[in-house]
């Protein structure tokens, strides 16, 4: 069955026997997922959709089920996200609303048309993050083995060990994390990849949080810290929060939006962890033998440099 036929069958199951799929096209996705755009035409209505799916050979139906559950919970609680529609029949993709807007960081940071949005994004993302973190992790996500911080450290050590490659700087980061554990917290739903490149934005500001594939049960401070990593400031090194604002601005906006008062020390802990995680991702990605993934392997030294500054 072709993708068009599969989606048509799914569209009929969700929109009725008369529904049909039009204008199916591959879209530029990311390094980790395939993306297709299409319309479902049902009677007089036309629904703009995307399918985000695992690339061949890297299917993760468990992960997609958890991601869809998280998207549905977020959508039901007024978090700005694309309306989730259905899990593809083979379980490897999610069909959701196709949104209009811009998600390319360099345009968002430089183009004049996004000047107003730039002024609002730190506050709006803080508010959206607080809304996500008010949610309990859906049952479809794996239950953490431990409190969020020690569970995250153990997972990173295991991933690093699996690669069999030595990375002393990442180990120093992990060692620092073990010595600076924050107070144990009840896990909440965490987006897991909150950064400028995963926001849909228009001239008025935030449209939606995209790319929920790394969502998990964790500590909300994790998302705030991830949004501050230097690797996605795109040259705005002096503006840690999304490449746009200060750490204080992000933490204040988050608390004002009903999030808990995250201390600078907690944020630092999760920034170090985020840098270790990004370093481990670089190391792991390089084991996929495409040019793009191999090239990412040589980026591990960037978060290594940044974390060595943070633990000094």
């Amino acid at each position, binding site marked *: 069955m072709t993708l068009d036929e599969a989606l048509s069958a799914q569209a009929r199951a969700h929109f009725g026997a008369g529904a049909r799929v039009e204008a199916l096209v591959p879209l*530029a996705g990311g390094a980790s997922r395939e993306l297709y755009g299409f319309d479902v035409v049902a009677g007089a209505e036309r629904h703009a959709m995307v399918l985000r799916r695992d690339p061949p050979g890297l299917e993760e139906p468990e992960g997609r089920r958890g991601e869809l559950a998280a998207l549905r919970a977020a959508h039901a609680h007024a978090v700005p996200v694309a309306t989730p529609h259905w899990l593809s029949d083979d379980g490897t993709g999610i069909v959701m609303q196709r949104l209009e807007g811009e998600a390319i960081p360099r345009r968002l940071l430089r183009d004049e048309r996004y000047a107003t949005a730039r002024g609002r994004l730190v506050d709006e993302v803080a508010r959206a993050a607080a809304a996500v973190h008010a949610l309990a992790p859906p049952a479809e996500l794996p239950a953490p083995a431990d409190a969020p911080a020690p569970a995250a450290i153990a997972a990173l*050590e295991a991933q690093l060990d699996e690669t069999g490659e*030595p*990375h*002393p*700087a990442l*180990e*120093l980061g*992990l*060692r620092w994390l073990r*010595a600076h554990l924050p107070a144990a917290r009840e896990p909440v739903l965490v987006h897991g990849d909150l950064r400028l490149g995963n926001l849909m934005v228009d001239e008025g500001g935030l449209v939606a949080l995209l790319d929920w594939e790394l969502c998990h049960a964790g500590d909300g401070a994790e998302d705030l810290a991830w949004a501050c990593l*230097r690797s996605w400031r795109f040259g705005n*090194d002096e503006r840690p929060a999304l490449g746009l604002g200060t750490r204080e601005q992000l933490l204040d906006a988050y608390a004002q939006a009903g999030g808990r008062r995250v201390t600078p*020390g907690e944020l*630092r802990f999760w*920034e170090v962890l985020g840098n270790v995680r990004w370093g481990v991702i670089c190391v792991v990605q390089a084991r996929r033998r495409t*040019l*793009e993934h*191999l*090239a990412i392997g*040589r*980026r*591990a*030294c*960037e978060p*290594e*440099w*940044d*974390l*060595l*500054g*943070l*633990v*000094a």
Partner: protein
Amino acid sequence: MQDRPDAHELLDALAGWLAGELAPRLPREERFGVRVAANVATIVGRELGPDAPGEPAERERMERLLALAGQPAGGDDDARALQRRVADAIRAGRLDGHWAEALALLRESVRDKLAVARPGYDSFEEPAG
């Protein structure tokens, strides 16, 4: 022994051609892959060039770290094997009492990687705690 041009000169030229001549002629959605290819050629060119940091410096740093950890290196391990021993020593807490020295040596290690993969990245430092 090969004639000139050297490997790094050839790779610089390849990177320049990919990014400067090929990419602009391609449709937008195909340019990303070509830019990645150009960047890879640039990185390998630096790695093979006259200014590339060498393995002896990394060996020496790892040997100093192992000495601090109280586990002096033998003579015949290569740099990767020494990094393995240092990584294990850090995880086991054997460098906890030498934090500042360990940090300084690892910063030099990372600087050498950045000099090839991302020159200039070390001109900015995240604020210390």
